[in-house]
């Protein structure tokens, strides 16, 4: 297959990359744009480590081609912090210890952000269902659920201002 030039907008920056059209979005982000915060943990779209946000929706980066994301706004874990100021969910992850080895964390953060953007007053069950697609082998999820819940309950609202 012939390689082609693709423009991806990642974390509010355009990148022109020259790729095989069958390149996955996660491969484009990791191997071509070299943002390695997004991970890969399986080959079966099962683990969620490669989750990024595409036009506001959580998407597993191994389930779409990079060319399908052309023209979309892509957000990765590297794009959450702005000028040294952490996103509320990042603060909550720190406060709750919602990560251990950290390998699932980028994907988990992106699923959490997408979930919080859509669910204003989620129940605990809704939070759990919201991150069902992300495997964390370390934490047992409860600290992650607490972190998402605390952001949803507005604990970090003053930081948003």
């Amino acid at each position, binding site marked *: 297959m012939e390689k082609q030039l693709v423009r991806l907008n990642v974390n509010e920056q355009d990148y022109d990359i020259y790729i095989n059209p069958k390149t996955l979005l996660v491969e484009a982000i*990791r191997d071509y744009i070299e943002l390695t915060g997004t991970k890969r943990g399986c080959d079966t779209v099962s683990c969620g480590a490669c989750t990024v946000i595409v036009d506001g929706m959580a998407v597993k980066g191994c389930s779409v081609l990079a060319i399908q994301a052309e023209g979309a706004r892509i957000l990765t*874990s590297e794009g959450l912090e702005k000028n040294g100021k952490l996103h509320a969910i990042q603060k909550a992850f720190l406060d709750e*210890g919602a990560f251990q080895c950290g390998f699932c964390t980028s994907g988990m953060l992106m699923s959490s952000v997408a979930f919080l953007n859509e669910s204003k007053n989620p129940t605990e069950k809704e939070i759990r269902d919201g991150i069902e697609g992300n*495997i964390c082998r370390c934490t*047992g999820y409860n600290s*992650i659920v607490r972190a998402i819940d605390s952001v949803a309950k507005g604990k970090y609202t003053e930081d948003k201002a």
Partner: protein
Amino acid sequence: MNKYTVINPHEPFRVINTHVHNVDGWAKITGRATYTFDVKLPGMLYGKILRSPHPHANIKGIDASKALELDGVKAVVTGKDTLGVKQGIWRRYKDLCDEQILPVDKVRYIGEPVAAVAAITEEIAEKALDLIEVDYEVLPAVFEPLDAIKKGAPEIHDGFERNISVTRHIEWGEVEEGFEESEYIREDWFRCGGQAHMCMETRCAVSSYTPDKKLTIYSSNQSPYYMQGLMAGVLGMREGDIRVLSPYVGGGFGGKFELDGAIFCSAILSMKLYKPVKIVYTREEDFIASKRRTPMFYYTRTGVKKDGTFCAREAKVFTNGGAYTGMGATALYLTGFFHSFPYIWKGYRYDGYRVYTNTLPSTSMRGFGAPQAMWCSEQQIEWIAADLGLDPIEMRRKNSHKEGTILPGQATIASCGIDLCYDEITKWIKSKGKLPANRSIGISACGFMSGGIFNWFDSPYSFSSAVVTINQDGTVELHVGAQDIGQGSNTTMAIICAETLGVKVEDIKVHSGDTDNCPPDLGAWGSRQTLMSGNAVKMASENAKKQLLEFAYAQSGLNIVYDLDIKDRWVHAIARPERGEDFVQLVRKALRGKDGQKIVGRGYYTPHRKGMISPAYSYMLQGVEVEVDEETGKISLIDSMTAHDCGQPINHLGLIGQLEGAFSMAAGYGYLEYMPYEDGKLMNPNLVDYKMIRAPEMPPANIAEIDTYEPEGPYGAKEAGEGLTNPTAAAIGNALFHRFGIQMKECPVRPEMVVNALREKKEKEHAEKK
């Protein structure tokens, strides 16, 4: 909840057990933490491994010529390109070193490496694998230990009669007398499954060999020092010429401290090409070729008095060792030891046999043989209590270890909070009130070690070491050999250092995961780092502090009966805390006093005269509320409570996270994480078919901390986070027993097993009615 059985002499604390953020947190939540998986070196090539499709076969020949013709392929290596060293982590014992990572003449399991390719892309390397022709002579294979020990079974390794690779015997007290005194004896057979470590970061490594004959390896592992030593052995190099870097590690759980194909093959390829080579296992490779929890067949016979006093126990265990020994030898010992826990026996005897089979080798995994031991022990004890009409909690309580309990020849228990654990769980069960009809609670007790007193690796170094260096501005460099694999050891070490020196956690930079720059340490396994590395860090910090305070004493003119101390960066007389000076001022004076040499404190720890197993033991009792759908056999976990004695907690957030995480892994072992093999082939090597706990399945994992003081641990600390992998499977089994009266003898408990057990029970009751 703070209930001391002994007052902690080090209190009050400034840093210990306070809410401290993980010191690696910033890097991990901003996507900046660079794992081995992310390492990219200039000119790097990509490697792939060709794996055996046969469970047992001789390699008659390998023809790689077509692969080498493929554009972009740089090298192919096979066993013939290696020194053929049979290696193993029990390197003190030659018999147990039985694995050539690229075997020269024979493969022993499906998935075993046969050849490795380096190419300019991973895709080309993968294509090249298809072009390698291997001439196999397929041999008869055997997959189950009870078949492999039969006369006439295929011989997997030369000279191992009946395929038994390791035997272990543990015995203390009066076993025969104990059984003679027993008024009730029960015997049961159990089967314990394997379990995949399933680290989110699959096995991976980047090796870079340079013309000066030095090898640098980035590797996702639990013990850089072990990797360095083992690689030196298989490559015929000096340890000092090999540097192992383990930056951030995406999980370990006991599966990443033996050599694996990624490290070994990338190094062999790099040495051939003088180029960096990276190998990353796919998830499927990780499932089929990176070892697993050791499956076991357990026979256990227990004798008690009618009032519930435990008399004697004997156990016989056959483990499915798979093709090679590795860390399985330790799991074989520890399962036998912990099968006695946490109870006092007049006599205890254990015989364990590790059996070679033509399956994926089994090894250590979080809990290290104890989850299997407790699956059997804690269910059988529950059944005995029911058989005798006794309260299962009170029966456990009256037989439990106490402070001062001696396990003859094995261990002395210096701290033990299990008695309070029984109180907490009793309270919790009462608080639940009457449960809905489809729910029930099961309990399970256990204990675990705080690091092993084993030196099968034959290290000439201290078990743990640390170096503390104080900079002129009061910042501190802490170099440790302890490895952070996500469990938070960097944070725990920083907390111990800050508490001891009297500074803040943010003053401390932790350096770990680099054999060139960090002192040797046996690494992250057997729950050893909090106690062992923690003691080394405490000693190094005390040493640096003492050097600093010498200058403070010299200028203070203080009467010799008064002491100085440092707290919160303030150097002061303990009797007059307001009189003192800033930490940084003192550091600068000390620097001048030392003619400009930085203050460096060294610390180390090796257990001496602490028995055979471990310097200290944690204790816990867990209750799990389980819901069962009788039609489908589906198990759901509703709630749980663990009363947990880990001595003095050090890292508050880390402790909660470790205990919750251990619960999810332990529960997975109990009812979800099944590894079915057919003719040596794993049938579910992917995350669609291998079921684990996901967020919706995870119940609350409540913790009641029982704080004791462990004299051997730093500030009174001992193990946390591994031991809690042990009780849950049995607690789930016990909940099923209480709800339905069914006895589950195999884990993980799958829905069809529950349905079958319920049907059999009904049929039996029906027959009895007739």
